[in-house]
C-alpha cells in the first residue's frame, strides 16, 4: 500500500535524522532537555540564555555564561582571584581533585566575583558556579564572598550574589562551616552600612549556603523551578521515610511559603536587577 510505503520512508528518514542527531550529540552539538526530552541544538539553547525553547526549563549556567548574561560588556573587573583553595584537613586527594577541576572548568573556584556595571549601574557581583564541586562553600568561596561584601561596603556599592550550591564543602570540614559565620557577619555589616543586597537563588541552592548569605538578602529572587532548601530532598526522605510531593522545595514552593520575594525568568533577570538597584539609590 502506498500509505504504508510513505510511512516506511518517513520512518527511515526519521531514523536517519535521529541517528544523525545522536551522532552529533556524541560530538557535543546537541543536548537533550531532561524535562521535555526535546533534542535541542546547543547553539540555539545558548542563544536562548540556556532556557529550553520548547518547555522553558532553565538549564544550569556556568559563572562565565551568567556573567555574560548579566554584566555590561567589558565592565567586569574580577576581584579575589588570588584567593585559592585551602586544605585544612589535609584530606587525601582533595588538592589533586581541585587541580583537575580547575583544568576542566577553566575556573579557579566555585565563585567568581567582581565590580561591574549592570545597565550602567555599578555593583559588586558574585556568581557561584555549580560545575566546581557542586558550588560547595569552603574557605576560598567564603573568603571571596566576604571580600565581595567588604568591597561593596568600602565602595558604597550594592551587592548582587547569584547562588548555586550543594552546601558546605565537606572536604574542608569545620572550616567550611565557619564560612557561614564569616559571610553572615559581613552581611550584617553591609546592612549596617545601609547598602542594598540582592540575593538570587538558582538551581540548586541548599545546605550551608541557604543557611547563610543566600537567605539574608534585602530582596531575594529565584529562577523558576529552582530547588531551594536547607536539607537535601534525599536526606528528608530518609528521615520521614516517605517520598516528597512534587515541587517540594521548588522556587514556587518557597514563594508560597513566604521565603522569597519574586520568581524571575532568565530573560528578565538583567533588567530586574538593574531596576532594583536604581530603586535603592
Amino acid at each position, binding site marked *: 500500500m502506498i500509505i504504508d510505503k510513505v510511512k516506511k520512508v518517513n520512518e527511515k528518514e526519521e531514523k536517519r535524522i535521529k541517528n544523525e542527531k545522536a551522532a552529533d550529540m556524541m560530538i557535543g552539538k546537541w543536548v537533550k532537555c531532561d524535562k521535555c526530552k526535546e533534542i535541542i541544538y546547543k547553539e540555539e539553547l545558548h542563544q536562548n540564555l540556556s532556557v529550553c525553547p520548547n518547555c522553558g526549563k532553565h538549564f544550569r549556567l556556568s559563572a562565565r555564561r551568567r556573567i555574560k548574561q548579566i554584566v555590561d560588556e567589558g565592565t567586569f573587573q574580577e576581584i579575589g582571584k588570588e584567593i585559592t583553595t585551602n586544605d585544612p584537613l589535609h584530606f587525601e586527594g582533595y588538592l589533586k581533585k581541585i587541580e583537575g577541576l580547575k583544568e576542566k572548568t577553566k575556573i579557579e573556584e566555585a565563585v567568581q566575583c567582581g565590580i561591574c556595571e549592570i545597565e550602567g549601574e555599578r555593583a559588586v557581583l558574585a556568581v557561584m558556579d555549580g560545575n566546581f564541586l557542586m558550588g560547595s562553600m569552603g*574557605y576560598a568561596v567564603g573568603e571571596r564572598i566576604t571580600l565581595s561584601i567588604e568591597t561593596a561596603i568600602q565602595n558604597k556599592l550594592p551587592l548582587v550574589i547569584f547562588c548555586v550550591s550543594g552546601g558546605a564543602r*565537606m572536604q574542608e570540614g569545620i572550616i567550611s562551616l565557619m564560612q557561614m559565620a564569616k559571610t553572615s557577619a559581613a552581611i550584617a555589616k553591609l546592612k549596617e552600612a545601609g547598602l542594598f543586597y540582592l540575593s538570587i537563588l538558582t538551581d540548586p541552592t541548599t545546605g550551608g549556603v541557604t*543557611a547563610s548569605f543566600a*537567605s539574608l538578602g534585602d530582596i531575594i529572587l529565584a529562577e523558576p523551578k529552582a530547588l531551594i532548601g536547607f536539607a537535601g530532598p534525599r536526606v528528608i526522605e530518609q528521615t520521614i521515610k516517605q517520598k516528597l510531593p512534587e515541587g517540594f522545595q521548588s522556587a514556587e514552593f518557597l514563594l508560597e511559603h513566604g521565603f522569597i520575594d519574586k520568581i524571575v525568568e532568565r530573560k528578565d533577570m538583567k533588567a530586574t536587577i538593574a531596576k532594583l538597584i536604581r530603586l535603592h539609590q
Partner: protein
Amino acid sequence: MGNITAWERVELARQLERPKALDYIEHIFDEFIELHGDRNFADDKAIIGGIATLEGIPVTVIGEQKGKNAKENIERNFGMPNPEGYRKALRLMKQAEKFHRPIITFIDTPGAYPGMGAEERGQGEAIAKNIMEMSQLKVPIICIVIGEGSSGGALAIAVGDKITMLENAIYSILSPEGFASILYKDASKAKEAAQNMKITAQDLKKLGVIDDIIKEPKGGAQEDFEKVIKDLKQYILKNIKQLQKCTKEKLLQQRYEKFRKI
C-alpha cells in the same frame, strides 16, 4: 586522656547518660526561669532558654536539649531543632541585648531537623538569621559545646566571643557517618571519617576554631560532674567579667575578627 581516639570521643559525646544542657543550666546558675515559644508558631522543646543569675549577675541562657532516654528523646526530638527553636533562641537573645544581659549557649545537637515542616517554615532562613544577628548582639556571648555540635544546626547558636568545648565534645560540619557516606560512599567508615575530620576539641583548638577546652574526668563529664560544673562556672564567670570590661564597639570588632580570620 591523651590516647583516646576521635571515634571514642564521638561515643562519649553521644552517651545517653552524659549531662545535657538542662543539667548544666540547673547546676551552674541560680533562679533559672525557662521561657517558651517563638511568638510566631510554636515552642520547640529541642531548644530551651530563659533567664538566670550567675553569682548575682542576670544572664540569658540557651541550650540544645537532648533526652537521656527514649521517651525524653522523642519529646526533645533528639535535640534536633526546628526553625521555631532557632527563632525562640533569637527572641531570647534579642531580649538579653535589650536588658544588657550576657548570653551563654550550650550546644548539643546531631543537627537541625531535616523534616518537611522544618523546610516549609524556613530552616535555612532561621539558621542564617541567627548567625547574622549573633554577630552583632551588643552583649558578651559565651558558647559552650557540651556534647555533639553538628552542622549549621549547632552554629545557629554558636556565634560568640568565646567558643569553648568540653574535652570530649565534638564539633563538626556533619556527623562522621554522614561524612563517610558522602566522601567515602560508605557510612560504615565513620571511625575513619572521625579521625580525618578534625572534630575533637584538641584539633579544633589547633585550627583556631575554638578558644578553650574544659577538662573532663576519665569516662566523661558524668563521672565527676561536680568538678566539671565548678570549672565551667568559674570559666564562664571569669570570661563574662573580662568581656564586660570591653566597650561595645570593641566587643563587636573582636567578634567580627574572630570569624573573619578563619
